């Protein structure tokens, strides 16, 4: 252990923190993704910036001590188990300690539940789920706020720029006759049929709605 320079240990620790962040981000992103695929639900998925919340940082902070401990354990133990391999790796071994410490520890912990007398006394899966779920919930909340704001912003911006007839034609081109007819029928039941159609377009086809808005703005300039 004395032969390992302090700089290498610090590098392992920094890499372990980086891997922890990456790991947590992937887990939160995966948790916030939709579990169903339906034509009626837009296929947009959460963005990385929606995952960065206060609860995400709490999750990362909760993970870091365990991941650092396992990285230091890997740094201590792995060269003793595989001396030739780590001699060959040289300076790159710091990367391997952090990688093994974070990812192997995650695999081990998330697949280990210890039961004594029918009680899950070391139910790691459950523990990690309980600290991860609030971070996932916060990401979903942030993404929903962004979706709602974007939907409203596009609809409000398009309303004065697009006549209802033009809007109906564009919806027919984008969604096809069948879907457009269903939408038309539903919109007629609403207080503001044009706003109904605009909100539908902004929700179902956000990229197309945004490109119509951009084109309208460009042509009006």
């Amino acid at each position, binding site marked *: 252990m004395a032969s390992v320079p302090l700089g290498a240990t610090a590098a392992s620790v920094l890499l372990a923190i980086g891997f922890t962040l990456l790991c947590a981000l992937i887990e939160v992103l995966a948790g916030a993704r939709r579990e169903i695929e339906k034509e009626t639900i837009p296929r947009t998925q959460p963005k990385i910036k929606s995952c960065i919340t206060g609860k995400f940082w709490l999750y990362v902070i909760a993970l870091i001590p365990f991941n650092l401990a396992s990285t230091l354990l890997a740094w201590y133990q792995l060269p003793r188990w595989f001396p030739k391999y780590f001699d060959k790796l040289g300076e790159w071994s710091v990367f391997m300690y952090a990688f093994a410490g974070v990812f192997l520890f995650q695999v081990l912990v998330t697949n280990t539940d210890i039961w004594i007398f029918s009680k899950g006394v070391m139910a790691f899966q459950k523990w990690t789920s*309980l*600290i991860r779920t609030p971070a996932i919930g916060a990401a979903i*909340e942030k993404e929903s706020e962004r979706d709602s704001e974007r939907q409203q912003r596009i609809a409000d911006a398009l309303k004065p720029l697009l006549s209802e007839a033009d809007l109906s034609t564009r919806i027919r081109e984008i969604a096809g006759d069948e879907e457009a007819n269903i939408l038309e029928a539903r919109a007629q039941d609403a207080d503001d049929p044009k706003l109904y159609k605009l909100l539908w377009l902004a*929700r179902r086809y956000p990229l197309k709605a945004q490109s119509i808005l951009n084109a309208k703005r460009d042509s009006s300039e």
Partner: protein
Amino acid sequence: MKLITVILRTKAAMTHFFRPGAAITYSVIDNTVLLKTFEVVAQGRSVTLREILETLSSEEAHDAEFKAEVSESLRWLLDKGLVRVEEAPIEDFSIYYVTSDGLLAWNKLKEAGVFDKHGPASRLIAG
């Protein structure tokens, strides 16, 4: 319709760590439409009322009575903190999203075998 009663323990110990002061509550879901509505929101993570109605049944989506039943279910879920809403000027486009309590409850329901983890909502809970 078959009546299903599922006891949910909606708040777990670690949730309290993140929301100090919250009390442990037990909720009962005893209505098929409610269960299916929760399933669509939990699986979709963030969906509009129109999308919920269309996912549950495209034919019934026009039915005012069915819409009222779904709206009532959503109010119950909102009241229990399993779901939250981002209001829109037209009700159909209000976005309902699952909370962390809702995700914990959803996982418990799946563990209890109430839902087919990989099945679409329309295939579940035959009436």
